[in-house]
């Protein structure tokens, strides 16, 4: 078994100590870690799911624009961060498993390690409102 890169391990440790929802994906977009606050968004527990393919996590929480129109995965900040390798930011709405509608502000960054190694991406969520 191979281990995660050290910068990714340290990112996970940081995420575990923060109260903001955080996703970490690998270079192909698979969700390799999400912290406890992020479990509310996905409606699952990391300890139960482990990592999750990009096709699953990007549609699981059904992000929509202000008019309720679904946002395709390629327009999500984290997908942009790893496919285009630059920071991305967006506001969107999701319906969580507890049926609340949350307005989220999301910033995503590509993770670039020592010696310019591309390691994946990280997204930090901020809840703006809920109803």
């Amino acid at each position, binding site marked *: *078994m*191979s*281990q*995660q*890169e*050290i*910068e990714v*391990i*340290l990112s*996970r*440790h*940081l995420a*575990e*100590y923060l109260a903001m929802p955080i996703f970490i994906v690998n270079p192909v977009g698979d969700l390799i870690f999400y912290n406890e606050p992020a479990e509310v968004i996905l409606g699952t527990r990391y300890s139960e799911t482990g990592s999750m393919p990009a096709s699953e996590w990007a549609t699981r929480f059904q992000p929509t624009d202000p008019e309720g129109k679904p946002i395709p995965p390629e327009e999500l900040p984290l997908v942009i961060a790893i496919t285009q390798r630059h920071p991305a930011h967006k506001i969107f709405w999701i319906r969580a498993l507890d049926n609340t509608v949350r307005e989220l502000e999301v910033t995503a960054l590509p993770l670039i*390690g*020592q*010696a310019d190694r591309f390691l994946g991406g990280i997204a930090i969520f901020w809840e703006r409102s809920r109803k």
Partner: protein
Amino acid sequence: MKVTFWGTRGSLASPSPETIRYGGNTSCVSVEGSDGTVIVLDAGTGIRKLGQSLPPDIRRVNILLTHLHMDHIQGLPFFLPLRRRGVEIHIWGPASTTLALNSRLQKYLSPPLFPVSVRELSADLHFHELPGHVIEIGEFSIHAQLIIHPNPTIGYRIQCDHAAITYLPDHEPALGSHTFPLEKEWTSGYTLAEGSDMLIHDTQYTEEEYQTRVGFGHSSIRHAFQFASLTGVKHFIPFHHDPTHSDDDLDRMFKQIVDELNPSYEVTPGCEGSSLEVAC
């Protein structure tokens, strides 16, 4: 391969009557292959004596630095082959986002910190930055990977045909973990150490000391033994002894943890001047 310990102390050289058996010199280990290849792991103060022991006609030496903290480079200018014309010295170390390895070493090897600069050394010097690829040196394949320690720090796995040794002298895999050990996939250094025939690993602190030194980049003895169990190594060498730990302290600490954990692997605490063979 023959593994020789020239310096086993961490942080600061600490020669004294109380540290004679484990040694007072800082990190330096040599690995010699059957074809005469010499690998030097770190250039702490122990490297001075290694330099004196190498044959005067040696043509090439490979120095693998884990990082550039002073206890791992302080002996470098006292390494005799560096002053010999015609000797090829290859120095490998961690890359930085700002300065080249050569330039970072020159911060120490230049006035006012040291009177002799890198360009005044007679040997034919070559600098290589890591990680990024597997290094092939003589009969050895060397894997380098970043590990948890302040400032970019590399761990090494030196592989010959049928055996491997892993060198992680400054390593805090438990940093940030609510419980340790974590899953293998999320453990710093796991890939380098997995199934290794010999693991040389940081055991700087007692449990009590570690509580007030979290984030300093070193392991408690317990964490190091747990890491050795997790990675399934065959022979564990506790290393990088704290300067405040006397020979008697270290005897007591290692006996206590071995009695308590009854590890499935062999344990031989690193002692300056000792050599061990690993069959390739």
